[in-house]
């Protein structure tokens, strides 16, 4: 059985190792290793389209994860204060946000937004005093919102789990000692849930940064890194793409390790 487990680990890591190896390939071709070089990293980082896509992805991931962290934490706190029925309804919706396939989330968001724009844009135009009214369109906003849905559900669940294991005695002791609710929240609850909030933020960031299929539907004219990589792969894998993939893989591993570390933290640092 040990041999089998070793083989499975090899199976999991061999393809990743190949991508990393070929990103350092000196040669032009993606399949023959002819020497060590970092030239493709230089090429990748001086490709304006690629850098633009990378910047878009970073901006979208940071914004949607931040929104998700704030709204998700608020929701997790709010859910502690409602009745069983409201809670069950909310849990079902959050579960749906996670379980519904990405293609369907992408499609339904696209369809709903296009309908919304069809109503709002003429209305805005009729109100606007000049000839150039603002137009709502697919782009950053729609990707951030669509990613935010999944991410927020994720944060709500992670923070909710942490809240349910929170020591209630501390909260009661705090109010027995005449602390205001706000003080109790700031000095007892918040420090305890902070690792979960940060972990949720990091996982949401990773998810948004990696997502291809939802962005593919709602991106409009914008390009994110996965969309760029997907389009390039279809034209043929290049060492340049391997370099980008290696950077992205390394960054996601770092973020996930950071998230795990935050989740594993029991006490906040003083």
């Amino acid at each position, binding site marked *: *059985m*040990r041999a*089998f*487990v070793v083989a*499975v680990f090899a199976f*999991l*890591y*061999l*393809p*990743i190792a*190949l*991508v990393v190896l*070929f990103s350092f390939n000196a040669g032009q071709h*993606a*399949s023959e290793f002819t020497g060590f070089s970092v030239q493709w990293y230089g090429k990748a980082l001086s490709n304006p389209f690629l850098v633009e896509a990378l910047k878009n992805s970073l901006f979208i991931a940071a914004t949607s994860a931040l929104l998700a962290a704030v*709204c*998700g934490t*608020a*929701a997790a*706190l*709010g859910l502690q*204060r*409602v009745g069983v029925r409201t809670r069950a309804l*909310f849990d079902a*919706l959050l579960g*749906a*946000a996670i*379980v*519904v*396939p990405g*293609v*369907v*989330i992408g*499609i*339904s*968001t696209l*369809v709903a937004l*296009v309908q919304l724009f069809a109503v709002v844009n003429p209305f805005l135009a009729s109100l606007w005093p000049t000839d150039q009214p603002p137009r709502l369109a697919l782009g950053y906003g729609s990707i951030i919102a*669509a990613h*935010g*849905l999944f991410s*927020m559900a*994720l944060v709500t669940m*992670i923070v909710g*789990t942490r809240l349910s294991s929170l020591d209630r005695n501390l909260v009661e002791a705090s109010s027995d000692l005449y602390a205001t609710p706000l003080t109790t929240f700031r000095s007892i609850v918040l420090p305890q849930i902070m690792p979960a909030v940060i972990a949720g933020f990091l*996982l949401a960031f990773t998810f948004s940064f*990696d997502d*291809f*299929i939802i962005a*593919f*539907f709602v991106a409009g004219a914008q390009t994110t890194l996965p969309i760029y*990589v*997907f389009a390039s*792969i279809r034209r043929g*894998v290049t060492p340049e793409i391997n370099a980008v*993939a290696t950077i*992205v893989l390394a960054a996601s591993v770092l*973020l*996930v*390790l950071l998230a795990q570390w935050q989740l594993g933290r029991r006490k906040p640092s003083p």
Partner: protein
Amino acid sequence: MRGNLVRKNLLTALLLAPATLWLVVFLVLPFIAIAIFSVGERAPEGGYQAALTFAQYANLPARATAFWNTMVLAPVGAFACLLVAYPVAYYLALRAPQRWRLILLALIVIPFWTSLLMRTYAWMYILGGRGIPALLAYVGIEDLRLINTPGAVLLGIVYGYLPLMILPIYVSLERLDRRLLEASADLGATPLFTFLGVTLRLSLPGVMTGFSLVMILLLGEYLIPTLLGGGKVFFIGNALVDLFLQSRNWPFGSAIAITLVLVSVAVLIVANRISTRLSGARRVDLI
């Protein structure tokens, strides 16, 4: 006292408002929208035109190949994942040395949180003309095509979703009361009998969780069939991308999307039923 209660409720409402707004605007309303679209007609220039017809649903057989591929490869892929995942989960939970356990588990989880796109395209190398086929040509096996076949898609599925299958099985095996294993052995059961009657039996809820999760994600899969199936192994996800982004037949696409969601819900309900029957419905957290 009453003022206090009002304030308390107001705060609760304020805390829940952003999330509620988000769920309604980006989940509930869009879903209602595609439900309405699915009984509409395609506008002449593409998109949607109001109507009340079930023609789109009647037309579902037009994409029978995509449905067939998905409905076959999703359960087969989930089962193949299970066959590979179970021994690994078993080893990690019951055999691996204590201090290695968490490290090995982390090594399983890390690939899952890295880009599926990047991990899948690595297989385009390995299975492509200059990968394994080139190696095989050395030993005289010529003209073997690996990529753009259902087998390649299946491999990609196992590769991509293996961690998601290992995790819940690991959790249920890890919670197993080891005294039961000793008791079984003390009562004279053979190791095989103990495995089948105790270990496997008690890990079935984890197996069900893993199986249904992988299966549901596979129902909506797009990247793996596109990259490793090369336009020959169509999934429902491929049909949806085609209908919404290329042929702009929104009503038909909506009908397929609604069907996909209904199938996913059915899978979840069946899985839930089975695992409730298997045990007192234990929930497995993935994160």
